[in-house]
């Protein structure tokens, strides 16, 4: 039995679980869009500020749901695995010939699929409200690839936290922290227009800013090599770091001989 088949079976389980509990699949779709629409209604006039990169706040704000959805991925991936640990389901898997790498990849496969569905939904919403994607159809494909990568990276972070703590409650407890990262980024204003010094410094140091700016560049700028390199680079770095940590934590968690 190949690792690929094991991975496929575990990814299928992850997707099946998601589809059978719409209460956990729908909020990551709906809430970011609602937040975007509310923000756009209130902050539309900021597009008149000199130096604002677009005249459509919706186009500017559409990047946020992509990243917000990825943060939800962290919670979903982590909570699901933590539940498996708490219920003993992980022991059941450990008693098979399952490889540890298949477990991590399988869980991430499900999360990536959900991330792609979310991204396709946000793109559809953007097109429906009249957002013009400056990078065109190819940019949309790159956007989907980036969404998949961000979901995998943040999903791996969730898996690491689950394997480290073994507690769904601990994962849920991190939810506010993730929102702090989101709100202290360039989510609502371009960094060059943030005049409060400390906020500008924090937003510049916050990796979430670069993820948002990567998505934003594809929507409103076109092809911005620096934004893309920073976005993809940071995501890959987060993903690889989280994967390494998750793999180490899995060895400790699966103490089988």
């Amino acid at each position, binding site marked *: *039995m190949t690792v690929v*088949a*094991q991975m*496929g*079976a*575990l990814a*299928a*389980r992850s997707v*099946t*679980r998601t589809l*059978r*509990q719409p209460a956990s699949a729908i909020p990551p779709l709906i809430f970011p869009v609602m937040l975007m629409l509310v923000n756009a209604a209130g902050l539309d006039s900021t597009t008149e500020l000199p130096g604002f990169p677009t005249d459509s706040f919706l186009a500017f704000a559409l990047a946020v749901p992509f990243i917000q959805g990825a943060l939800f991925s962290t919670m979903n991936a982590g909570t699901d695995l933590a539940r*498996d640990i708490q*219920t*003993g*389901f992980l*022991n*059941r*898997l*450990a*008693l*098979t*010939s*399952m490889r540890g790498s298949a477990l991590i990849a399988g869980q991430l496969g499900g999360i990536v699929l959900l991330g792609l569905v979310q991204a396709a939904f946000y793109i559809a919403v953007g097109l429906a409200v009249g957002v013009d994607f400056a990078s065109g159809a190819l940019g949309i494909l790159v956007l989907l690839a980036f969404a998949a990568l961000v979901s995998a990276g943040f999903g791996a972070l969730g898996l690491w936290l689950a394997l480290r703590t073994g507690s769904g409650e601990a994962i849920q407890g991190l939810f506010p922290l993730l929102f702090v990262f989101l709100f202290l980024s360039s989510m609502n204003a371009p960094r060059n227009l943030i005049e409060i010094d400390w906020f500008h410094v924090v937003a510049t140091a916050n990796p979430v800013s670069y993820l948002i700016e990567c998505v934003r560049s594809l929507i409103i700028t076109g092809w911005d090599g620096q934004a893309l390199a920073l976005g993809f680079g940071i995501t890959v770095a987060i993903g690889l770091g989280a994967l390494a940590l998750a793999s180490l934590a899995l060895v400790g968690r699966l*103490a*089988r*001989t």
Partner: protein
Amino acid sequence: MARTNTIEVERLVREFKKGPRAVDGIDLHVDAGEIYGFLGPNGAGKSTTVLMLTTLLPPTSGTARVGGYDVIADGPKVRASIGAALQEAALDPLLTGRDHLRLQGTLQGIQRVERKQRTAELLERVGLTEAADRKVKGYSGGMKRRLDLALALVHRPRLLFLDEPTTGLDPQSRTALWDEVGRLAREEGVTVFLTTQYLEEADVLANRVGIIDHGRIVAEGTPAALKAEIGLPSVHAVPAEDADRARLTEVLAQFGEPLGDGAKDVAVRLREGVSGLPAIVRALDAADVGLAQLEIQAPSLDDVFLAKTGRSLEGAGESGNGAEPAA
């Protein structure tokens, strides 16, 4: 060592940090095709032993060979040889019974066509064919346990570990599970290592029983041999009139060792076995003691546990060391 269906354990120890020895140097031998009942109260070390024998918990010291393979050096080979249903039926409430079997089959390396056949066969065998496509969250406790057993059997293991498989089940489900476990050993030659708190379960199912308390095996043998070791039966009598109780106690004391005061009955361990019964009846008649009830009881495994540990198995877990992890 060649492939076998045996379990060999020598001086197996498991210590937990800041805790007592959950398993304290046990020795075990389970023959191929045997049902071995591992009996003990909560916290005695049963589940810790199962976790070590199934490779999920490394021993602190000692050796264990399962199916001919060392649990430390040959973990993957041990896992390929065994099936296990651990203490809680760890199932995914959002998956159906069929989903579980499909996933388990894939992870055990069974090819698609065989997996489909095996799934149908096992669902039929555990009586879950009709419920196969329902989510597990709607299953009863008995259905979950039966699915748990089916999952343990997907890859046709040679050895089966069942950790308290009937805890919380109704009598009908319990009997059905006993029948299936008995059939597996009898017809398929599967070696079964079964932990239980239930005396009746060990008595009915097991060819041999090991009694564990505070991490040590305090008695081992066939249920009949263990009971014979305790020896003599006891007589339990309830006086027709409560006023006769003292005289009843006095008469019975002539025939054996008193077994303490019951709420209603007076009991003695019969010095001369069942053959002393006619003399008891004659003595009670002569003393004019009327009886509401007279019963001869053969020794039970609880008597064995009492004799070996000084405590009754019922409720003995209350004073357990509490170091046993949930499986």
